[in-house]
């Protein structure tokens, strides 16, 4: 574990936090879209595909 906070980390804290939140939001949105589409049956297999 790093005991001492480097000045660079303090200086870029806001920027890193912002990028982190954007990436987190992107994951949540893509996950949410997947859930909606799966529940709606967008990825359901057609009967012909099931038989194969």
């Amino acid at each position, binding site marked *: 574990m790093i005991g001492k906070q480097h*000045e*660079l980390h303090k*200086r*870029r804290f*806001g*920027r890193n*936090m*912002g*990028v982190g939140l954007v990436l987190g939001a992107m994951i949540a*949105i*893509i996950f*949410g*879209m997947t859930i*909606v589409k799966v529940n*709606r049956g967008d990825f359901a297999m057609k009967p012909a595909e099931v038989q194969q």
Partner: protein
Amino acid sequence: MTDTSINTKGYEGEAQFGDYFALLKPRVMTLVVFTAFVGLLAAPVPMHPFLAFCAVLFIAVGGGASGALNMWWDADIDAVMRRTQKRPIPSGKVTPDEALAIGLALSGFSVVLLGLAANWFAAGLLAFTIFFYVVIYTMWLKRWTPQNIVIGGAAGAFPPMIGWAAATGTVSVESVLMFCLTFMWTPPHFWALALFMRNDYDEAKVPMLTVTHGRRATRVHILVYTLLLAVLAIAAGFTSIGGPVYLAIAVVLNLLFIKGAIAIWRRDEEDSETDNFAVERKFFKLSLIYLFAHFGAILVEAGLAQFGMGGWS
């Protein structure tokens, strides 16, 4: 290079998250978000609320990406104009290469995700909008013709059409009308701005109408476009996106807008300089309310339609 030299370099003007966000032109984005949202809700095909939220978000990100690419290309003239000098690139906080990278990455990201959230037709329209704004308007028309604002205004007019396409997968008369409303609104809105930001465009050598044809001609153009816009905006009230609420708002706002345009037309430079362009500034502010109120009224009509009350039926 020592550790100290790495850490002190660029400390003063180092970009924060907000500077990167400013590349996306957040104020323009509010217009994009609102008009796309109205286009999506006014469409006759319902969309899952979460997918609708995602679609509007990706349209906004696409609009922001084109803003970043515009700032990358126009960094030289942004540095000259007072209105744009504090933008992230001319102020030295973000490098042009960073803006280019962010613009390209977000363009690809927004188009692909809109395709997945809604449909590929809407995604194609978004890709075309980004191309139109960046290549046709920013790189080509803006520095070449005084009609730059007229033709370039199409880029800002696409969002409601993309919102409609996200829900329906197609283009229709209603979405074209929403496009035309923003398209015809853009010239008087920007020419009023050009009148009171007097020397900005001259110094940047951007061929705005005020520079190439003079300020008198610009005042005439504002009046002509305002009259044409009024005809279109009121006529839209009798179509399926309109209704009594829309028509009432459109009539009042268009009368006020025409009154403002006539006031601008009747003035000369001496009058304007005496009161520091008060009439032109008032007209510009009214133009913002004008567009938001018209799209707000379309939204109200669409909302009322859910209860069997909207429109003329």
